[in-house]
């Protein structure tokens, strides 16, 4: 049975979600829901939006990002995340790895389309 494209897309995203989150945070500091919105704007939908939080906690534990509070008009202060210098270095390395990997997959797929 051929897997649905939505399900396949979700599986692919799961594997690179930490890298995508780090890239979004590197663009500008943002909070959890904002990251989900930005992913959606770029055509990446999560099956479970909350799955970003364990990854954010892990990135924070690895000191790739850090959290800070920003006052909010509707409710308690929001937890924003920003990238650390180590996080920026990790992102550069991951982006390079991804590029090599994606090119390899691309070549395999194009080779199959005869």
């Amino acid at each position: 049975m051929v897997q649905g494209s939505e399900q396949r897309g979700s599986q692919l995203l799961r594997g690179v979600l930490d890298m995508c989150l780090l890239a979004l945070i590197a663009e500008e500091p943002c909070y959890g829901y904002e990251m989900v919105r930005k992913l959606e704007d770029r055509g990446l939908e999560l099956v479970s939006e909350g799955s970003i939080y364990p990854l954010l906690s892990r990135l924070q534990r690895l000191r790739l990002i850090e959290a800070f509070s920003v006052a909010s008009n509707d409710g308690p202060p929001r937890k924003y995340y920003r990238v650390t210098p180590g996080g920026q270095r990790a992102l550069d390395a991951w982006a390079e790895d991804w590029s090599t990997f994606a090119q390899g997959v691309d070549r395999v797929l194009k080779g199959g389309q005869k």
Partner: protein
Amino acid sequence: MMTENRATLVVEDCVEYWRRTGVPRSAVVGMREELEQHLREAIAAGKSVESVVGPDVLAFAEEWAREYRPTSPIPRPISGVGPGLLAVGSGILILFSLLGIGVYAGGGTTIEACCPRQVIESGTAVITGGMLIWLLLVFVAGILSIVAAVLMFRGRLRKGGWTALAGAPLALLTPVHVFAAGLLLGSGIWALSRASRAEAPVQAS
């Protein structure tokens, strides 16, 4: 309104799970706020609670909690001289105390009542009421030794080590105090040092 109620319940379920499974209290406060805010915005955007936490709330809570709990390796059964000697020692302690208690309870006044002279040379020792407390302490030391040995065999080195160390002062009250206390102290230190080595962080390559 129903979605908001569902969101509140989901947050409460997660918080309870995090507290129950050892997530630090300070982390739970932040996780709760973050989840509440996310659910509020998602619901306002017309999304369901499930679109945030997925179909299994506790699986979601566990996935997040795992990032905050201290890593504890799965205990593996241990074999070695430490717990083995401790198990033998605990058997001796318990046997000795039960022998004395048995003699007292049976109305006998001397160990000779149930043991041949060849086994216990001071066969005329009288088991008095005061000595019963002393024998019970020996019995407790023996039980602690067995518990410690079992914990060590099951790989719970830290718990086993502390249990053995707790039994060491009681073991000093026994006639074989050097042997018993030494055994408990030695195996306790062995277990704790081995546990510390096992828990030492691995150097990243």
